């Protein structure tokens, strides 16, 4: 089963971090990424540019309006995601628990829909 781990954070919080604190954080992330690559669970993932770079598009009566900023107004924004394939939801939750952003903000784990289906 594939799961997407959505990373939520507030970049402003990390702005005041020292170099050492940052290095420690990146070290944690690297270690998890390495583990996922070696276990064959890594499927993909990307970091997203700051939410201030986002455009939100709405089409009403056929007319698109494009506004600056993310869809949901909140201090915490979607900062990136990783997709893993693992045996259980528990394992996906375990990976999310160790991702550093979970300690300061939140990680959200969602099963990814598949194209496979059984007729009734």
């Amino acid at each position, binding site marked *: *089963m*594939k799961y997407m781990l959505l990373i939520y954070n507030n970049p402003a919080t990390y702005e005041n971090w020292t170099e050492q604190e940052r290095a420690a954080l990146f070290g944690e992330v690297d270690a998890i990424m390495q583990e996922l*690559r*070696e*276990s*064959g*669970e*890594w*499927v*993909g993932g990307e970091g997203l540019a700051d939410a201030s770079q986002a455009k939100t598009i709405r089409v009403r009566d056929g007319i698109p309006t494009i506004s600056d900023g993310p869809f949901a107004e909140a201090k915490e924004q979607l900062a990136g995601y990783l997709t893993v*394939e693992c*045996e259980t939801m528990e394992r996906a939750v375990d990976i999310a628990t160790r991702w550093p952003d979970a300690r300061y903000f939140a990680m959200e784990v969602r*099963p*990814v*829909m*598949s*194209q*496979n*289906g*059984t*007729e*009734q």
Partner: protein
Amino acid sequence: MRIDAETERLLRDLAPQALGALVRRYGHFDLCEDAVQEALLAAAAQWPDEGTPANPRGWLITVAARRLSDQLRSESARQRRESTAATLLTSDELLAPAPDEDRLLDQDDTLTLLFLCCHPALSPASQVALTLRAVGGLTTAQIAGAFFVPEATMAQRISRAKQSIKASGLPFRLPPESEQAERLRVVLQVLYLIFNEGYTTTSGPNLQRAELTGEAIRLTRLLLRLRPDDGEVAGLLALMLLTDARRPARSGADGALIPLAEQDRSRWNQAFIAEGVALITDALSRMPLGPYQLQAAIAAVHDEAVRAEETDWRQILVLYDLLERLAPNPMVTLNRAVALAMVSGPQAGLDLLDTLDTDDRLAGHHRLAAVRGHLFEMAGDYPAARACYQLAARRTTSLPEQRYLEMRAARLRADPEK
């Protein structure tokens, strides 16, 4: 890479034979497996242009042995034990074995390979990947494509699986007689998993996945040749054929799922049905009963009904009763509830479903809600049916199933009679 179907079939048949010959001779399952893959790639590149060699099996073994030799030499150079490997590959006797003895070894080797790739210490994902590569002769790229993961991820899974086998120090021979029955169950599980990965894919661009179905059938046929008197091997092959027979009718041109009762049965593959029915009839008449045989027998009853209304639900119910006794499992009870509803009316089925609400394995499962929806619809309780379909649609992680369930719920709302 241009490669015709015949060459590909030949290569895939020869892959486990070449691998078996190498491992039997030299050990180092992991390195031999890499070497055979390289030889297969070399053959796929050369044979279409230069023609298939007179002794294709010998060609593959020679090329693979050369790769293995190079690999062992560079490895032992690292370990400063060059002399051992240099003398390892001077013999050419394995290239021209006596034909009869050779055939016998191949058969044992393929079975030994299957047992090794489906070792219970490996995760199901690793068992599947390794079986497809080492026994099926598929490339890592093909397997990765079929499972929608990056090639590097699949390569890592295969490599880890091989490391586990290496670390376990398993010898390259058949497991002891006393363990074979249990180990064979795992092999059958892996083959069925491969089959279902392919079968449950609806139409569309995922042709690679549909090939998994064919590959699972090919490998199960191979296994049946090696174990002709195992009723469960015959049962699994029959189940695959009787299920795959319905593939042309199970989804619409747009990929939407079509339930069994609404399928155009003229599109079912009659050759597969005939073969599956013959296999299961023979197995049931002379071998001990098992879960795959019962599932195949149920599939056969469905396949033999020319129209959905002619389905012999009483017989299906008897078979589900037997299956539930032989291999109790909430999914079987769920299916028995459908058969019971068809025989004794929807309320009997709904009552049976209520007993599943307390089963943790199924309580939150979308299939329970979906089946309940069908039975409520049968009973004429459309608001309850709609609510169940909607609940099932929220729970499923399958896009085609979600679409089917949402359509089913919408149909009940749109019909003024309902």
